[in-house]
């Protein structure tokens, strides 16, 4: 700690008191919803700036802000696939609303203490599809691939498709095999499930 500073330095600090106070202010979750937050959102134009904006917002609302990697990946997915999309929560301020944007809601309500990123990917997909059972995205017998959105016959992809694939590719990469969750298919188990479902329908 220093006690002695040059008068010039002190004068410079004195002059920039307001700027320093603003720069050192820690923005809470509500700030992002305010006019200043909206202004910051609009000023973020490049992919990096958008990702950084969502990353800082998620850090502000998360109880496990230390898990920067996971928060950054979610921020990337939001900036890449959700922001500007035609999804109901694709624009400001709904994109930041935990009750509307399921990815933001996930960060607000879940502890991010696990080390396995695949688990985050599957629970995020479950949240995105409004389901509670993340297991259904991992176990072959539930035919998890059938829950995903696929591109249309003319090759067009929906916004939900972009979000799903961004989540899968960002999080579900820990598997060494050729297939990664939720692309899991076991020929006998899956076929048995088909039969069970068929008999139920019948």
């Amino acid at each position, binding site marked *: 700690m220093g006690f002695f500073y040059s*008068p010039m330095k*002190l004068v410079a600090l*004195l002059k920039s008191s307001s700027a320093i106070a603003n720069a050192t202010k820690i923005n809470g979750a509500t700030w992002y919803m305010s006019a200043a937050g909206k202004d910051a959102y609009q000023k973020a134009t490049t992919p990096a700036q958008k990702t950084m904006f969502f990353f800082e917002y998620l850090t502000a609302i998360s109880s496990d802000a230390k898990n920067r990697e996971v928060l950054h990946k979610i921020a990337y997915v939001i900036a890449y696939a959700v922001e500007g999309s035609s999804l109901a929560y694709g624009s400001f301020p709904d994109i930041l609303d935990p009750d509307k944007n399921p990815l933001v809601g996930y960060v607000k309500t879940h502890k991010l203490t696990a080390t396995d990123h695949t688990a985050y990917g599957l629970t995020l997909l479950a949240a995105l599809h409004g389901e509670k059972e993340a297991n259904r995205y991992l176990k072959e017998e539930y035919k998890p691939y059938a829950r995903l959105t696929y591109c249309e016959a003319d090759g067009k992809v929906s916004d939900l498709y972009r979000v799903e694939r961004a989540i899968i590719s960002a999080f579900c990469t820990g598997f060494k095999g050729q297939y990664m969750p939720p692309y899991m*298919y076991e020929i006998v188990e899956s*076929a048995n499930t088909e039969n069970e479902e068929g008999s139920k329908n019948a």
Partner: protein
Amino acid sequence: MSNEMKMTEIIAELERIDGLYERYQHLDRQMNGISGEKEKEDEALGNDVVLTLHEYREAQDEKFNAKKPSIAAPCLAAPPCAPEKPKDITAKNFFMASASGLVALGSFIIWCVLAALNSDSILVGLLSGLLTIVILGAAGYWFAVGSHKVTAVVEWQAKQAEWEKQQAEWEAAFNRAATEQESQRFLAECQTYDTAFLSLVDVCSKKYREEFARYEAGLEAIKDKYLKKLNDIHEEIQGVLTQLEQVTLIHSSLIPSAWRILNMLRTGRADTLKEAINLAADEERKDAEEAARQEEAMQQQRLMEQQAHDARMHNAAMERAAEEEARAMRAHNAAMERAAADQARAAERQAREAAKQTEMAKQQARDAQRAASARCARCANYSKCSYQVRQNAANCSAYTPK
């Protein structure tokens, strides 16, 4: 004579009942055997179908070579960690903090100038007193509060500048990677992967349906194969059961004991059917009790054997533990003995070293004395010195060469 005849008929009827019952049991065993064989064939067919499906899937997996879709690495790299912001900094309190430092410094300089003037003026004295109060107040605030805030901000600014550089690099790398072309590449990879995966699912599902049809047809064939055999036996069992149901000589619950009753009558242990039934029931009860006793005895025997085994294991474990303890103790004692022997050898070595040192010291003293005597003999004053002085030649300072 008529009684004997009647008894002969009863025995003949009992023999028939016993024969029917044995036949029934034989057919029942046969039926169970055939059912078991059918179940085994069903299971073998199921295992074969599952194995075929797994092998097919493995072959398909080998053909599957779609690349996993990937996002550009810079996009998934977390941004550099920003320095922690100093807390409780407002425009007002930071202004006060910086100002206190400046005021204290400025007042101190003016106070020094006034002191250097060394004036007797009342005004200068008042001004000096006032400045002293200002210096003390401002300096007190600066040292107690202001300098902490200013230092925190200055340190944060330095770290922030470094972070901003790293952040700019991160943003540049991110923006270079997150292009529209990159996005198109990623989505194209996703579509290729999806197509390949869904094709795999389709061909596997088709194969499964084929194998399932084979499985069902196989089950049907096995069922047909065994059905005739089972039907024949079943019909025969029904015939035997019908005959057994028509038995009136003894109650249907006594049919399994018909051989005992028959035995009583044949060996003459009973004179009437009723007596034979009672004796047979009694014998059956005794046999059951004996069987229960034997079972209990066997259980006791097993229990005792288990206890004996446990005791043997326990004793063996105790013996091993004792042996290990003894071995450890022996090793410890041996180590102690070796240490004592080492110490004794070291002490002996030290004593020898000390004796050698002493001998060397004596030798050096003798050599010194001899050299001094030789030097004394070469001295010009040799004849003038007394015997005692010559003996103390080593300390002589009056040496004069001849």
